[in-house]
């Protein structure tokens, strides 16, 4: 059928004509979009994810020094601070699973926990003029970053009921690690830093095994190929990293060690860095 837009195809790029006439699921159309340029929306912003179980659940002994370090860095680095969920999410996931609730509902519930942690972090940073913003308020983010240097948001992606089922089990597969990664990727951020309570990535969980070996730097494909039983980061972050167009590496640091966040913001190789290996782009 002819539409008014078809008559004005002279305004369109070659790709545009392909998009209007072809099927979006056509492999050739998708391939053609691969060659388009990347514009970084906020190239100077640093996305910092504060762990839920690893940092927030520890209370002031862990959170206060970290807040202090964030404040010290405000004059130099612009930060989007996302929060994880933690032990209350674990409680409500196990309760929800027991009640027979689906993954999408568990995601709604888990999002509330990450939101609570973001609120608490926001209260601690409020006197520095740092706002809390909801996903719907992300349009104001550039302004706050320019004026105040940082914003606080909850780390969960806003998928809610639309969260896809995981391959196994029922725990929402895309949680706060993924949400923060996708913020960094969409804005073309300078850094994606995960603040946890381990020095970085180990071959097994160092909290449970004394033979765990530290990995300071590893390629994402290499890490996926190791198929480890447990990981420091949600698996979907690794999967998305292999397809990302902006973020080439992510860093994991120990938020219980003073100075690590500053070092990571400065570009020092502290903790573990997972990078995109075999980078063709």
């Amino acid at each position, binding site marked *: 059928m002819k539409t008014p837009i078809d008559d004005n195809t002279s305004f*369109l790029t070659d*790709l545009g004509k392909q998009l209007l006439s072809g099927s979006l699921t056509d492999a050739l159309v998708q391939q053609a979009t691969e060659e388009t340029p990347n514009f970084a929306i906020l190239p100077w912003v640093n996305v910092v994810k504060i762990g839920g179980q690893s940092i927030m659940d520890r209370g002031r002994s862990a959170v206060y020094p970290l807040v202090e370090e964030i404040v010290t860095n405000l004059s130099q680095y612009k930060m989007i601070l996302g929060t994880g969920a933690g032990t209350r999410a674990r*409680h409500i996931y196990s309760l929800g699973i027991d009640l027979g609730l*689906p993954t999408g509902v568990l995601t709604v519930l888990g999002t509330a926990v990450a939101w609570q942690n973001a609120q608490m972090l926001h209260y601690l940073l409020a006197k520095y003029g740092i706002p809390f913003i909801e996903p719907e308020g992300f349009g104001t983010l550039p302004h706050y970053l320019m004026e105040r240097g940082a914003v606080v948001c909850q780390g969960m992606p806003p*998928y809610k009921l639309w969260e896809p089922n995981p391959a196994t089990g029922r725990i929402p597969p895309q949680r706060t690690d993924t949400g923060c990664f996708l913020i960094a990727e969409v804005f073309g951020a300078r850094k994606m830093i995960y603040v946890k309570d381990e020095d970085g990535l180990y071959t097994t969980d160092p909290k449970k095994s004394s033979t765990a070996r530290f990995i300071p730097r590893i390629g994402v494909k290499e890490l996926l190929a190791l198929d480890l039983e447990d990981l*420091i980061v949600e698996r979907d972050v690794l999967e998305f990293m292999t397809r990302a167009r902006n973020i080439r590496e992510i860093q994991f640091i120990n938020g219980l060690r003073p100075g690590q966040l500053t070092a990571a913001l400065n570009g020092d190789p502290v903790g573990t860095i997972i990078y995109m290996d075999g980078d063709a782009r």
Partner: protein
Amino acid sequence: MSFDDSSWQHVESSLMRESLMDKNVIARSDGQVVPILPDVNIVQIGGRSIMDRGRSALLPVLEEIVANQSQHQMIIGVGAGIRSRHIFSVGLDLGLPTGALATLSAKDSAQNAYMVSCLLAKHGFVYLEAPFVVQLLPAMLAAARGAVFNGIPPYALWEHPPLVGKLPPHGSDAGSYLIAEVFGARSVTYIKDVDGIYTTDPKIDPAAEFIPEIHVQKLIDRKLPTLPIEPAALELLTRAKLMRNFRVINGLTPGNLSRALAGKSVGTLVRQ
């Protein structure tokens, strides 16, 4: 300094202190899922295939929806269409990322959904934005006589990077399926402008072969060059716990929707 457990404040649960990335912990999180709205039917109206054609295609579809209203509870998802193709073209030319394209495209399907809700308003259908789907859908279904929602899921800036290229992988087909799965709906019907799934595009290739019913994994494995539905919807169906099939029908043929709602064989049935 000490990293011991003394500073930790835990809530006791079966997942306490566990890594949610641990494969064994993940495997233990399965079990029975209860359907939340088992009687509701999800009907998805295609953007490019139905909406863009205007009244000649859309009004008969809406009439058929109304004719089935007394027998079947329906929530209507609506897709985007040619305006999204246009904004993808401009956005890609500007270098915008996938998440920005997804945010823009969701407004096109919102417009389409809003138009459908206006046309169905006198029959008691309400338009629900995503936050209202989360909070109010059951109440709305009890009070109203149907609902219309934006088929594109509210992933916005958080849309997944696709395997190839930059186009948002989760469109209205994926979004409508996800709503059916999370509520444990009775059925999902995609209303398109082809009779169902063919081996190749029947609009171009006269030798295209019709597929009346197929297992979703077999369909994925066939790697067909074009599909009338998003590949993401197929991936989601492989992981179904409640909504274990969906149907693709031709909305330009009167009676097809009624047959699909009655559970009769029409179009293509894709099953887990």
